[in-house]
């Protein structure tokens, strides 16, 4: 088919489409749902016997940084499927916020001077890992559906940003429902779970965020 025929066919088969809402608004909708879901998850975990420590002032700064990083990463992920947004402008704010979160945990870890063996043998943290990884699954699925409506310009980057948003917010839920007196344990176990989530999502993006999916029903 030559280009002129293709143009005529595309125009002939044109159907109206609802323009996507601005990335900020789409991210806000997802974040509202996520906040509700994480709150329910945290309350459920508390009901199972875990104390709620959301009001603990010492935990407040890392959690605030985590929430900011989550919000920025979700907004960046949603904006990254809209052509015309600068990749660099999108990536740096959530990375900076995530680094602040990591920084607060690293500073806390250094002041507590916990031994590595103690950190790695904190078996109760598997529950947090499960909460972050398994609890994130519905959030990832909803966000992936939203992202598939856009243009898969940088699938791995988009998925990594989405995973950072989901993982870091699920971490806030896990920290709210489970006592975390030790920053080193939070850093290693929660950080490790989020890193795994980011790597898996970035790898799997090639199968989910594809031009093939975007072009479904459109062919030359």
């Amino acid at each position: 088919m030559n280009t002129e025929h293709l143009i005529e066919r595309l125009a002939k088969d044109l159907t109206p489409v609802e323009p996507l809402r601005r990335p900020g608004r789409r991210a806000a909708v997802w974040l509202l749902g996520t906040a509700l879901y994480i709150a329910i998850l945290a309350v459920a975990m508390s009901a199972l016997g875990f104390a709620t420590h959301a009001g603990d002032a010492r935990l407040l700064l890392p959690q605030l940084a985590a929430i900011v990083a989550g919000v920025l990463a979700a907004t960046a992920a949603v904006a990254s499927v809209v052509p015309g947004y600068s990749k660099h402008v999108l990536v740096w704010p959530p990375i900076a916020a995530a680094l602040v979160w990591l920084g607060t945990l690293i500073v806390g870890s250094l002041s507590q001077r916990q031994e590595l063996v103690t950190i790695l043998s904190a078996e109760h943290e598997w529950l947090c890992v499960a909460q972050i990884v398994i609890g994130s699954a519905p959030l990832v699925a909803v966000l992936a559906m939203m992202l598939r409506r856009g243009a898969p310009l940088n699938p791995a980057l988009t998925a990594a940003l989405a995973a950072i948003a989901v993982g870091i917010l699920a971490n806030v839920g896990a920290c709210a429902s489970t006592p975390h007196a030790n920053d080193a344990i939070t850093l290693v176990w929660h950080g490790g779970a989020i890193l795994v989530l980011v790597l898996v999502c970035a790898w799997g993006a090639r199968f989910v965020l594809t031009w093939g999916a975007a072009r479904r029903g459109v062919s030359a």
Partner: protein
Amino acid sequence: MTTPNSPIDDLGQLMRAAQQGDPAAYLELLHKVTPRIRQIVMRQRGFAGSADVEDLVQDVLLSLHAVRATYDSARPFVPWLLAIVRNRLVDGARRYARTSGREVQIDEDDVTFSEPATNLDIEELGDAEALRHAVRALPEGQREAIQLLKLEERSLKEAAEVSGTSVGALKVATHRAMATLRRTLGTKRT
């Protein structure tokens, strides 16, 4: 069709109208952007043949069509379009690198040898009528490839321009057509 003097002569406005389902505005938009896309593709892929350039242009147009809902009329149209063009060019280059990595370039062998054994097929395919029938029975794309490359003896580049397909697609069609002909004529002989 919308004339250049109409109120919606801006690309962004044309796309906004296209999002609402106006085919005339969309046709005008595609006619306006296609030469620009072609120009960018030719600049970036100077080494590519005209068929490959058109393949990339069509790829961009299909991608633009697929994600037209992502255009925000409050934002400028050209950066939106350029982001898609850049992305498709990068993907095209990756595809090309992957494909060419699997292809093996071989020198063309002489088709005529003095050894009688090499000429047996030609002698056995002496039934021109059977060959004509077999060629007529081929699917349209394969028949056109055989007609242009084998019967009219055009170059791949010329044949691609005439047929409006890519060189790669022509090679595949020819290969399949030759395999079908061998199978058909071979079956008839036995």
